[in-house]
């Protein structure tokens, strides 16, 4: 797979040419000692107290209780603090949105043109987004970034997984999922009935199945999907790319399960306010759910069953969950790191076991979106994304003390910390205006 080749190439570079690339620290050996490590290697979160965590060449080498650090390691004393893998937000628009209200800084959606299923967000990613250092500063090292709309009545396009690291190379996995959106208050602009949406979605997969990629043009005259979109759907089927359906109403979630069964699709439900109502069905069909734990209001007619303990109910039924927090869409990207932790904390406050919440911020989304081979736990060989927390990571009053991405210690400087330092109360009586401060 293209991603794996890219990763392999990246590793060779890091190992052999690290100095040239400027990420020499990735080749360092680092040992974090006296950590309360949540390794995410077991169903219980794999907690190891007084752990020594060894990172070598950007990857986890070992985690062992009370072990002596390797002699060549740079040692960081966690002093009993909680250490987790870097966290992952399962639904953001990071790298695609800079200022939400400014159209030219927003590459997450289309309002016209021929692209539907073929819309692929990977080409619009902005590695220099000022949001990325802030997310990283909050301990977020991976994120799904996803499309929001196309002119197609159902397809939103393909999302990607980001690794939030400095230096420009943020695309971890392109085409991580195909997104479709069903229902919602925008349904009037999409034909007027969710029945039509389901019929069109089913038809698209039917067309994709019979599509011949070796003779793509012309498509049959009455085929609804154009050649770009049908080729994307066929490639999706061939690659077993998951279908991520944004839906909240129970009937739509059940329709999605039936569709996924008919076409042998790996299904992820995004939103899922009423997913708890068919939790057993989802568990039996291995359907994963990305939830917003703050969404406990019957905000639309599609969310009447929204409740604060959705995460707990789904996890209890054996459904794999991951988190996002919308916060009126404001928290989706601009506080993608801090808000998703707070959401996980709220889920715990409403009955979700603590370890399950941490898994929903790490290994679970890694598995859902196809990056579990290199991210999500502290297992040997995994990318060394790691956060030393100054308190309980699920308390929004806590913050990271130290963040590593792929073995590289992250800078803690962001646009927000610079503003903070420039306007700190200690400067109140400076003779020169703030513009002369760093």
């Amino acid at each position, binding site marked *: 797979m293209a991603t794996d080749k890219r990763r392999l190439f990246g590793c060779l570079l890091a190992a052999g040419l690290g100095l040239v690339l400027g990420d020499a620290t990735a080749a360092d050996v680092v040992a974090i000692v006296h950590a309360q490590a949540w390794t995410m290697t077991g169903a219980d979160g794999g907690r190891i107290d007084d752990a020594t965590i060894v990172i070598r060449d950007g990857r986890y080498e070992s985690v062992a209780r009370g072990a002596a650090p390797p002699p060549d390691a740079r040692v960081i004393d966690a002093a009993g603090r909680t250490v987790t893998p870097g966290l992952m937000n399962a639904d953001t628009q990071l790298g695609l949105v800079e200022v939400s*209200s*400014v159209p030219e800084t927003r590459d997450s959606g289309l309002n016209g043109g021929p692209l539907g299923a073929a819309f692929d967000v990977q080409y619009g990613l902005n590695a220099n987004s000022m949001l990325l250092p802030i997310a990283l500063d909050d301990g977020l090292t991976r994120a799904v970034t996803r499309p929001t709309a196309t002119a197609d009545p159902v397809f939103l396009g393909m999302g990607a997984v980001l690794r939030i690291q400095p230096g420009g190379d943020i695309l971890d996995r392109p085409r991580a999922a195909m997104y479709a959106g069903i229902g919602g208050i925008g349904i009037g602009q999409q034909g007027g009935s969710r029945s039509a949406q389901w019929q069109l979605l089913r038809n698209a997969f039917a067309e994709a199945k019979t599509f011949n990629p070796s003779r793509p043009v012309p498509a049959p005259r009455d085929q609804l999907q154009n050649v770009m979109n049908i080729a994307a759907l066929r490639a999706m089927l061939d690659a077993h790319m998951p279908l991520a359906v944004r839906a909240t109403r129970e009937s739509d979630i059940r329709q999605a399960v039936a569709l996924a069964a008919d076409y042998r699709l790996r299904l992820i439900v995004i939103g899922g306010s009423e997913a708890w109502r068919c939790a057993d069905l989802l568990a039996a069909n291995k359907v994963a759910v990305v939830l917003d734990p703050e*969404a406990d209001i*019957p905000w*639309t007619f599609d969310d009447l069953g929204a409740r604060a303990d959705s995460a707990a109910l789904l996890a209890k039924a054996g459904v794999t969950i991951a988190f996002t927090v919308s916060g009126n869409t404001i928290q989706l990207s601009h506080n993608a790191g801090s808000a998703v932790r707070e959401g996980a904390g709220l889920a715990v*406050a409403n009955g979700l076991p603590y370890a399950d919440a941490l898994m929903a911020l790490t290994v679970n989304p890694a598995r859902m979106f196809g990056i579990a081979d290199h991210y999500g736990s502290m297992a040997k060989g995994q990318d060394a994304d790691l956060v030393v927390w100054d308190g309980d990571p699920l308390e*929004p009053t806590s913050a990271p003390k130290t963040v590593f991405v792929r073995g590289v210690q992250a800078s803690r400087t962001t646009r927000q910390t610079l503003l*903070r330092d420039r306007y*700190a109360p200690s400067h109140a009586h400076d003779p020169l205006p703030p513009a002369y401060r760093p």
Partner: protein
Amino acid sequence: MTLPWLRDPWPSTYAPLPRQDTLIVGATVLDGAGHRFDHANLLMRDGKVVAVSTAPIAVPAGTTTIDAKGRWVTPGIIDVHSHDGAFAAPFTSLDLQASDVSETSEPMTPNVWVEHSITVQDPSFARALAGGVTTLQILPGSNNLIGGRSVVLKNVPATTVQAMKFPGAPYGVKMACGENPKYAFGEKGKFPSSRMGNVAGVREEFLEAQEYRGKWLDYLSGERKKMPDDELKEDTLAGVLDGSIRVHWHCYRADDMATLFDFAREEGFRIAAFHHAVEAYKIPQLFVANHTCAVVWSDWWGYKMEALDGIRENAAFVDAAGACVAMHSDSPWLGQHLALEAGKAAAAGRRAGLSISPEHAIQWVTLNPARVLGLEARIGSLEPGKNADVVLWSGDPFSVYTRADQVFIDGAMVYDRSNPAHQPRSDFELGQPSMTDRPGVSGNGH
């Protein structure tokens, strides 16, 4: 005679719910007035706070006693920026065309009163209550330069808005600066289409209000014989000019706010609060000098140009300068977690080197918002004689894991987490199959 802007055409019909004198024993009390009492007792009688004390409080027979060891007590949380009821759930596509939260037909609507838009059956009220919110100010939206009158509600379930209205609470007026008005109207080719247009529009309106108020005052003093015509738009602004109606100004940027501080001085009124005030930290001394509160979020930023410079230390930095700070929600989701908002803002301040105690930070969601509303003599702290608006928390109110166990308004228990019979549920939520439990799913259904 009563000046037209002082009339009360829709008077409050609020009456406290049935109540019981209550003694809470052994709690950690943050009293909202800046004090912390450990292992303390709180007595509520006849709807008022009688005492908070670490010494035993003798109570007459018939007083209900609640063992609160290990739990925390604060004043009721006050949200001074809510749209609950006006921007109500369920939100529908019809609201996209014509929402009740803003009268969008023109930029100047000081004549509208948001209490006439309120759906009392909005399920968000009860969710805010479960988050400890006992008092809400409902504001019109921010499309308009002058959006209309606010209303202050007690968060009790009711079938009319009058029955929720806080008796005697001063009215406020919602105003907006910056991007929202200029885009809401400028994009339609209407006035205003610029920041300078925003300011000019408001100045013009106040000039007229000055003249209008002058006519009425002349009429009262006998200098003018003919009774002036009653102008609904001018009434609200005349109330601002005489201090009886409080100004709540939606504004983000430091330079915008500084302009409006000068404008208010020119016109001779005080701005009660700048709401959102994302850049308040750049001009904290102006908030001190103008006796204006900065009403803020803990961390919202970046979703529009004027929110670009938001930092998490905003509240703490403004507070450190000695200005009044309050947290607000502007959102029915955030409005369930306002204590946590204060906790997050305080934590950011501590990380930046400031010393902020829990008993201080709780003021950002209790006494300070009470000051914003002009109700600091009645609510916002647990000082003797004040309304017994009280939250008994399962633990530290600044922890994400803490829930409101019980909530009291005027001494009446209005929410009890352990007793579904004391959990209000809106009419809208009745008979909705999606809200009922399914076999094998435990929980209370909402």
